[in-house]
């Protein structure tokens, strides 16, 4: 029996929470287009409930055999033909890495515009993320505890600093211009939840109460989202719509006593989160490779993924194509297929096989 990394449920969800936060922090017109941010407050509870619905097949499949992740299930139930499906999971995890890097690239070039080569910075980030992935899930899980502490502190700090600047008059009526923005908000929030698909691999690796973990994680993620919306709209009003990354701008205007320009704090936490997310999804993708080609291939695959990402970021035009083609809708359909359709089919096959076995035994 292979030795699987054993981490606590808390650690799994802290990794996923950070992965979600990094995308929430880049929330803005770049990813949501012209959608009304304030209406997304209605999208929050809807997405919260929808997430439970989408997670359910993955959780059900896991609860049928708590030692097997989705890839084991695919391999056991479909056999060698399932390799294609495993590869689709690997591709999805890599697409999420691409997307995260694209967001990073866009954010750094548009919001920060440092006087250094962004390609160089991306290179260093990829190399270090590969190192994180190489060190394994346990190391990453433990690192996430530290990052989570700093993240929570900075989020609270930013929240408190912005709270005094909230003006109630900026809270316009919800769905004033119809429900289109709400729909867009839901699609955005769900599509930016690759953590649901990550759970398909991570759940068997955790020790502890997963059901409670999913509920708390989901609640906190959407609570944070609601907080972000309320704070940025409340403190910036219509100025929000002039900003590509309003959360970053909000961090810049917040002040806490004599502490100003908290955007640097935001940046620090954000980059650590991006690092963690990339490493996590490298590991998840390498789990698929391991299932098909064995343990040795896993470590090699991490290096290969890193080289892939680095090569892509070297060609700005190709990166641009990826950035535009990996739209919210593509991610949404991909996520629905991998977290709802595939696990449901697997549950059905498993159920069918069990029933047939019981009939034979009878």
């Amino acid at each position, binding site marked *: 029996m292979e030795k699987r990394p054993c981490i606590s449920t808390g650690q799994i969800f802290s990794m996923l929470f950070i992965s979600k936060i990094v995308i929430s922090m880049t929330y803005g017109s770049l990813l949501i287009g012209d959608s009304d941010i304030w209406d997304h407050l209605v999208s929050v509870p809807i997405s919260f409930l929808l997430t439970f619905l989408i997670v359910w097949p993955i959780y059900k499949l896991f609860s049928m055999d708590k030692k097997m992740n989705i890839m084991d299930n695919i391999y056991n139930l479909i056999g060698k033909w399932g390799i294609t499906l495993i590869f689709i999971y690997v591709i999805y995890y890599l697409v999420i890495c691409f997307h995260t890097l694209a967001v990073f690239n866009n954010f750094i070039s*548009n*919001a*920060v*515009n440092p*006087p*250094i*080569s962004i*390609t*160089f910075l991306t*290179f*260093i980030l990829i*190399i270090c993320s590969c190192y994180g992935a190489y060190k394994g899930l346990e190391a990453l899980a433990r690192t996430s505890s530290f990052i989570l502490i700093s993240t929570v502190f900075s989020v609270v700090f930013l929240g408190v600093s912005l709270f005094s600047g909230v003006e109630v*008059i*900026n*809270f*316009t*009526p919800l769905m*004033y211009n119809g429900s289109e923005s709400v729909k867009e908000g839901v699609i955005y929030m769900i599509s930016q939840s690759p953590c649901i698909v990550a759970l398909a691999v991570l759940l068997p690796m955790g020790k502890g109460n997963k059901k409670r973990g999913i509920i708390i994680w989901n609640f906190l993620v959407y609570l944070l989202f609601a907080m972000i919306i309320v704070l940025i709209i409340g403190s*910036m*009003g*219509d*100025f929000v*719509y*002039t*900003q*590509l990354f309003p959360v970053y*701008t909000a961090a*810049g*205007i917040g002040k806490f006593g004599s502490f100003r*320009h908290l955007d640097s704090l935001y940046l620090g936490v954000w980059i650590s989160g991006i690092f963690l997310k990339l490493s996590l999804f490298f590991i998840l993708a390498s789990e698929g490779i391991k299932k098909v080609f064995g343990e040795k291939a896993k470590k090699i695959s991490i290096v290969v993924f890193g080289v892939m990402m680095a090569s892509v970021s070297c060609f700005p035009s190709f990166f641009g194509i990826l950035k535009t083609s990996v739209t919210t809708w593509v991610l949404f359909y991909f996520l629905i297929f991998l977290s709802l359709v595939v696990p449901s089919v697997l549950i059905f096959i498993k159920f069918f096989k069990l029933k047939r076995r019981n009939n034979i035994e009878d």
Partner: protein
Amino acid sequence: MKIKKSIFLLLFAIILLSFSGCSENSQLHQKLIIQGIGIESIENEYVLTVQALDFKNPSKEDKPSTKILEIRGNSLLNALENISKQTSLTPVYSQNMIIILSESIVKNSGVNNFIDFFIRHFEARPKVKICVVKDRASEYLKIKSEDNKVLTAKDIHDLIPSSLNSDVLHFVSNLKSGLSNSYLSWINIEDKNGLKQVHLKGVGILLEDNLVKFIEKDEALAFMVLKSVPNFGTFVVENKNLGKIICLLEKSDVKTNVNLEEGKTPKYKINLNLEISVFSMSDKLEFDFEEEIKNSIGEEFSKKITALCSEVIGNFLGQGVDVFDFGKILKNSYPKYFKKIDGDWKSHLKNCKYEVVSKVNVIITGKEPI
């Protein structure tokens, strides 16, 4: 394994070193750390006056020494680009504290022509204060104070109270909302005993992105009260028993509610909860610090401020200018009704009714004769 590690480390070092040249960073003293920007238009050109930290001629005191640069360009962006050409320094906008606009540029070409830079530039801060002046913007960044030193951008920044919300964030927010009108704090130079002094004189009101009028004196006082800006100026209240009383607004809490009357006309009720301090009064009448006297002063002040505020609101509404966020309040309270008039809000504004109610709390701080 060790060979692999060594190769990995070597590759890492090579990448790190080979890319190290990609850094275009300049040292701190090679940067132009901008403290204040003045923008004006002369002969169809943008004239930019920049107050920046001067590292070549350091002052011996704690205060940093500053230098003034005047740059011209066809557009604001062109003028800004010319800064580095002229100085060979990299401009840094993140430390900028104030943007001073001259009347000419806000009145003629409109704010939209140049404000975009201060919204979108990665170093621009939304909380930078923004103000308008009647004369040349450059004068304000060059003005010398008592000790023959240039008045720093920080000093001008401190002149404008934060509660006035005269910053890029609120200015742009109002500009983009389509409901409320934007306004800018108006600063002015006054000659006092041969010494030039800068002070906050009033407010400049914009219609769309053009400056339409300046308000000052009593109008400005009422505006500040309605915007919850304390300590702007003094109010003189006449009382037949007490004589002239000079009051200073310490605290202003404004709550505006709206009701739709039967004929579907919005009626605004503006509740002013004020706290004033009486620091000087005539010596016509002896009195103690009794509740009765406080009430008497409060009533007089209330009457005056109510009348003043009503007049100011009436003037604004009559001109179709919404600087008190009446549109937003109506939209938030009666969204269905507002949706019907959304596109034509400014014309509806003239028909709106209003009532100002004030409650004054008086603090007597002394009874020195004038």
